[in-house]
């Protein structure tokens, strides 16, 4: 199956969404990401049982932070898909790309024209 989705998306693979930390999400925005989505297994189907439930809580926490600091929580979202839902994945990427295009560039990029921290500093 060859599915097309916009090339503006950068995919970062993790063993489970439970690995995705609040700091990873915040850092993405510090580096100037216009939008971020976390895509995990369906609820109840995480191979590590609750990784995606932790991820959901973290995503919600970061959305709240982004709202409060003026970046906008609507730039972050979480989706739950199974491995057989490639078509839906491509569709989500198209949807989110459209949404982020509508929102325009992240206020971080607007303010600085670049990321706020060098990539080499990634730590959590």
């Amino acid at each position, binding site marked *: 199956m060859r599915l097309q989705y916009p090339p503006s998306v950068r995919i970062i693979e993790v063993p489970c969404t439970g690995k995705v930390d*609040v*700091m990873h999400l*915040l*850092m993405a*925005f*510090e580096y100037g990401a216009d939008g971020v989505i976390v895509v995990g297994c369906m609820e109840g189907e995480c191979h590590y049982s609750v990784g995606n439930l932790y991820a959901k809580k973290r995503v919600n926490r970061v959305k*709240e*932070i*982004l709202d*409060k*600091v*003026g*970046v906008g929580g609507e730039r972050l979202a979480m989706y739950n898909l199974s491995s057989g839902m490639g078509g839906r994945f491509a569709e989500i990427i198209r949807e989110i790309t459209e949404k982020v295009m509508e929102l325009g560039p992240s*206020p*971080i990029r*607007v*303010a*600085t024209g670049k990321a*706020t*921290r060098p990539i080499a500093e990634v*730590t*959590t």
Partner: protein
Amino acid sequence: MIKAVPKPLEEVLDLVKDFTKVLIAGCDGCVTVCEAGGLKEAKVLASALRLYFTQAGRQAQIDEISLTRQCEKEYLAQLSDKMDAYDAVVSLACGCGVQYMAEMYNNKIIYPGVDTCFLGVNEERGLYSERCQACGRCILAETGGICPIARCSKRMLNGPCGGSDAGRCEINKDIPCGWELIYERLKTLGQLDRFEKPVDPKDWTTSRDGGPRKIVREDLRI
């Protein structure tokens, strides 16, 4: 251990919004365990503040650090060569740590970044509950290992009161009656005769009533 919760982000933003160089200082002690003020929380808060200042088009330097404990001078001293670089520090330690830092760095603005709540236990991750009020004269030996000061809403020494209802406290049905717990535990231990002995009035001179307290251990001091 001491239990705390992070202050709402908007409260911290309001405290630091007029500064340009802010240090977020976590504590690796109690507040790390309850995930309110350790290195991780310091990183998250610093990142949030950087995002805030950056989107507002402001140049700001927001750094994070975490000290082994903020309730000890030796660890606080590790900040001595860094302090000049900042206008203000947000300390994520408990109220003891915040105050001790302010005492050591008298000219620096030190703000609290957490709300310190109580002495308690970790029931589960994210669920902490109070167990002790540091009264200074522990009576757990007489009360089946359950503290009536911390766990009876009225701090009664001869409970339960008439508001105890089916094991619940009258102030809130979600709170177990401390004296019911004491009764049940003493029953399990075969020590119900405790209820037949008159209880002397508790010596409260070691509690807060005498003003700020101090421990002087001559055996430890040089």
